[in-house]
């Protein structure tokens, strides 16, 4: 299956927006409930999961840029 660099850039942009928009959730819960509250910790884990996804997507994006703008085989 293939994906081109433009699509990947768009996906990366959307994922980065997602990460940015959800950053508020753990912050609010930490402020209201404290860092040790398990709901706040669950929110931290959620954000960590999104960050891992975005980080991986960015790495994938960078590798795709080096092959040019044409379609390439996904790893």
């Amino acid at each position, binding site marked *: 299956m293939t994906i081109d660099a433009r699509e990947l850039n768009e996906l990366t942009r959307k994922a980065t*927006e997602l990460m940015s928009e959800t950053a*508020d959730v753990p912050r609010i819960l930490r402020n209201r*409930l404290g860092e040790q509250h398990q709901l706040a910790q669950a929110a931290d884990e959620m954000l960590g999961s999104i960050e891992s996804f975005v980080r991986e997507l960015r790495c994938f994006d960078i590798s795709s840029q080096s092959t040019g703008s044409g379609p390439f085989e996904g790893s």
Partner: protein
Amino acid sequence: MGVLDLCPVDVTNRNRLDFSLYIPEADFEHLIRILSEARSRATELAASIGARLGTDHRLAELANAASTRIENMLREVRTSALESPAAGGLAELQGALQNEVQPVTPSPANPPEQSPAGIDTMASFAAQAGLEPEHWVLMFVKDLISQLRASGGINFEMAERLLQQRKDDFLRDFLIARRMYRTYPRLFPELQGEVGPADRETIPQ
């Protein structure tokens, strides 16, 4: 540890009701709105990546993991909003959702674009079903049709997600409408005669 090992987030047994600190109702609204939109975005991203790279691809697994985390977080926040004593009176919302009560809400500022034929069809459907144009069922049907047109197909999982999203929108609108009614009762003269003082927290159909 594999990606999918991180997916199941069971916070149901956590001490979620230990609200030693106050969470205002507005914060719950804000959190639900953020998480609801995030879930839609994450689902869309996961579907896009899965369709292009395959569902077994690491990126697709990471996207699904993030989506699941968001889904669970949203569920937990919604439950907390309904059960928290700090939210005061939100139990009525649970009843409203279970009874499928439709609150009085304004039309969305930016409704999805539809062809005149589509609008006529929906208006006809609404009239036949005896529903108000703003009823959530109609919104849900519009969501289904939009999804079908965008992706060329639909499955039960997507339909469930869209329905859940509609429920979250309902919850958010309900909280906003109730807060407006409490804060500005004079703006709702048509409700003054129908709702007694003891029932002022209840949003009629």
